[in-house]
């Protein structure tokens, strides 16, 4: 889910930012404890551990900062300690302006959690593609939005060596992952592709969040190496591959993983209505022929769970 992604408790986000649990910085111990929930995967599907996830919260949250970081692309941080405290890399939030915005009607959009800060901040990377995302891009510091999350199945890295591959704003979940891993003293290799230099998210800001700059590719060579991100993949490595970005990128990664016998998890994107499994709008085709909901069964899927001929 390269996204960009509504909410309920109407009370303002509590002033508990100091109380935001310190455990957030460190990779939580619960990640090791994940196996308890392994039986959650139906027997008919490849056994993939589904980490125990926190219940989603719906909050009206203030926009703490917004910054144009690339062409049509903003980095926004919201004051949302509840979600910051429980979100895991690969999870997303539904972000919208709510029902009482004057003169507007806007369904919330899904956004990968791009970072969580020690003060309860939730960062997202927003690229304005259409009317909805443009409206969200216009939010100003101090204004509030509705956040619902954390939602969806996160990446399951199991402490493995990880190579993350991002296209466009598919970068967001990997900033979060790299920042968390960096806090735990681990380094995540991050390969990041954009069309051209103008679309590239400020590498220095990425480095500030994650402790190191990504390996950059642009299609026209105007920044970083020229070419597609897949050129950065090492066939000899056996690291776990993670992918997030446009569907052609995910397809190419799936083909690479198949060819080289590599494990791959991808975050998929499909039009989403609710984010919590009620509307059944965001389905993708699973390898076993079922429609699976990308909001609650994904948005991260092991590549082998999906029918790549139908994606």
């Amino acid at each position, binding site marked *: 889910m390269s996204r960009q992604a*509504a909410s309920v408790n109407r009370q303002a986000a509590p002033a508990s930012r100091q109380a935001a649990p310190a455990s957030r910085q460190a990779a939580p111990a619960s990640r090791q404890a994940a196996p308890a929930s392994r039986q959650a995967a139906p027997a008919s599907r490849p056994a993939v551990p589904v980490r125990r996830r926190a219940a989603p919260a719906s909050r009206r949250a203030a926009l703490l900062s917004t910054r144009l970081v690339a062409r049509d692309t903003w980095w926004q941080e919201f004051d949302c300690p509840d979600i910051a405290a429980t979100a895991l890399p690969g999870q997303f939030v539904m972000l919208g302006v709510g029902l009482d915005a004057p003169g507007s*009607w806007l369904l*919330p959009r899904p956004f990968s959690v791009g970072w969580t800060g020690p003060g309860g901040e939730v960062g997202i990377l927003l690229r304005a593609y259409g009317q909805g995302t443009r409206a969200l891009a216009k939010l100003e510091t101090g204004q509030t939005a509705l956040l619902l999350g954390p939602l969806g199945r996160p990446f399951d890295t199991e402490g493995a060596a990880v190579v993350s591959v991002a296209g466009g704003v598919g970068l967001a979940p990997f900033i979060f992952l790299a920042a968390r891993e960096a806090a735990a003293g681990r380094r995540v290799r991050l390969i990041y592709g954009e069309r051209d230099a103008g679309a590239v998210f400020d590498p220095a800001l990425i480095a500030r969040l994650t402790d190191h700059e990504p390996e950059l590719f642009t299609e026209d060579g105007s920044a970083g190496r020229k070419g597609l991100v897949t050129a950065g993949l090492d066939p000899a490595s056996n690291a776990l591959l993670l992918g997030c970005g446009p569907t052609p990128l995910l397809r190419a990664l799936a083909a690479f993983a198949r060819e080289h016998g590599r494990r791959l998890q991808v975050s998929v994107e499909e039009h989403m209505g609710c984010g919590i499994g009620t509307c059944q709008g965001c389905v993708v085709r699973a390898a076993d022929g079922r429609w699976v909901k990308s909001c609650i069964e994904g948005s991260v899927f092991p590549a082998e769970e999906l029918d790549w001929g139908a994606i």
Partner: protein
Amino acid sequence: MFGAEFPSPVLLASGTCGYGREYADLIPLDEIGGLVTKAVSLEPRPGNPPHRVAETPGGMINAIGLENPGLHGFIADKLPWLREHLRRAQVFVNVVGHSAEDFAAVVSGLDGEDGFLGYEINVSCPNVKGGTMFGTDERALADLVARLRGCTERPLVIKLTPNVPDVGDFARICEEAGADGLSAINTFPGMVVDIARREPLIGNRSGGVSGPAILPMGVYATWRARQTCGLPIMGIGGIRNADDALQYILAGACLVQVGTASFVDPGAAVAVHEGLSEYLEANGGARLGDLVGALRSWRGTGPAIPAGR
């Protein structure tokens, strides 16, 4: 109403609240009036290919294709949660079928179970072949309602389609055939074209349009139904807040359903109820029942009704 107590006049609409469980972490379900489940058919249905949903001006379009686990899946996997977790909120099971036999089999198959109050019969889904067949054919509708009446003594609510010349005619047919109530109204058939690909955006090609864009049509359908029959009406279509709900209530609805608005804010149904309560308080402790259908028939006549908040 329907022989039961509703903690609130605001329910969650079918197709927007799953089978209840999905909202359990987000809103106090027992403080809303209740919910109408996603449609249940006799056999499981896989649903339509994506895209299934998209935003449209003032609303959204959907063509889910009635994906559901079927009668037995619903009884085994969905109904127990509702039975065990809801104490006050009332549950209607939305029922759909390809044929009158299908509808009757679902109602008969469910009728001995606990955990729900009654049925909302979906004769109005625009997103499956034949989905509106019963809702747009007066004879077929009369026969279906009469048949289902023979299958159950529980509240039998018919969810009407707006896709007819006059909803009032179909409301009257439902009453005459033995229905206990009406839901007005289901989505409007619509289409979105992806101009870049020059193809329909929605996998099913067409879908049902919901949201604030259809509010005036839903209010009108409610008013027409109220004029032709005496059944209690659940008003549905585009409700975002108490003012919207009051339009339905004044036009003749005694309960309302919140649908698409829950996607924008899962707390919408709770907020609509709060807003209605504030309105009643601000109007000298008026009772909601006094407002049902209390529309002044002509501009400038009848008792003045204070503006909503």
